[in-house]
């Protein structure tokens, strides 16, 4: 979290809305532990990460949507996921990511 503070504060100072994606659960092998965060700005900039790069693109879409709608959501990525081919973790694990607009 601390590594994205400066960037998120700068975006908010610029008046941009921001979404935050947080890894809340990891099953089996995954590159980042619970607590890993990625932030996305209204202009589409990114800070931080939630995996080794495997699912960032999908999380980015969810985050952009959350910025627009304000609707938080819990999303799951992994080999058991229907989108495994495009969005699966190459390491074979499953991660659960909570995506929300930073309204707090």
């Amino acid at each position: 979290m601390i590594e994205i503070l400066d960037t998120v504060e700068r975006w908010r100072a610029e008046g941009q809305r921001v979404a935050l994606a947080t890894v809340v659960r990891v099953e089996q092998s995954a590159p980042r532990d619970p607590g890993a965060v990625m932030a996305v700005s209204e202009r589409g900039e990114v800070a931080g990460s939630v995996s080794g790069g495997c699912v960032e693109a999908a999380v980015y879409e969810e985050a952009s949507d959350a910025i627009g709608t304000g609707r938080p959501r819990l999303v799951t990525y992994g080999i058991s996921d229907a989108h495994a081919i495009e969005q699966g973790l190459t390491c074979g694990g499953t991660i659960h990511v909570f995506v929300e607009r930073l309204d707090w």
Partner: protein
Amino acid sequence: MIFERLAAALRADAPVALATRLDEVRPGAKLIVDVSGAEGDLGSPGLNFAVEAEARALLAVGENALRTFGCDGEPIGTEARLFIQAFAPKADLYIFGAIDFSRAMARLGKYLGYRVTVIDARPVFATEARIPDADRVVVAWPDEFLASARVEPRTAIVVLTHDTKFDIPLLKVALDTNAGYIGAMGSRRTHAARVELLRAGGVSESDLERICAPVGLDIGARTPEETAISIAAEIVAMRSDRRGGRLRDGSLAVHP
């Protein structure tokens, strides 16, 4: 605002926990818990109260957790599902001896997220100019410093003094703590001599086993930077109960 309060605590390296509701009833509801109290609303006073208590317990051990409660905080309920993120203050890395190896070790320690303190009894060597990356450079007798320092299982102690007069009393104090990592630089011969002195001083065999010496993983390190990488890798390996070595030669899951 909760985010500002979180940011301030993280920057001050003060303990803080953030609870987020993940369920469909109040997704995203927040409660922040720090030394001065709690702020936010998870949906009911009972839930706020229960989660604050749980967050404080998690802060004590520095762990994140998923927890479920009833909508009014009942411990056996399942309506409220929460992710509680506990940000414990940084763990300490104590580096004894202000030599070139210490400068590289301090730099890597910071990189790994430790609060780095370098201790040396010699004021000429123990200067911030020589060890710019350390959070603190302290002129003190090593064993006396450690005897009054904060030590917990997350603490790493790296002895680079390389001098029996400092090493022996320091290692004795280190072995009386619950530090998770105790490494001591020196050749096999140096360490064998140290072990004899420690044994003669009444240190038990099981305590002698706790000393990582010769220090570091076997990567053929020569320079201060390479040696620091070798020691840092051993600290990480000990933390996750791994032996080191090449992943290609192993069969365990890559991420512990």
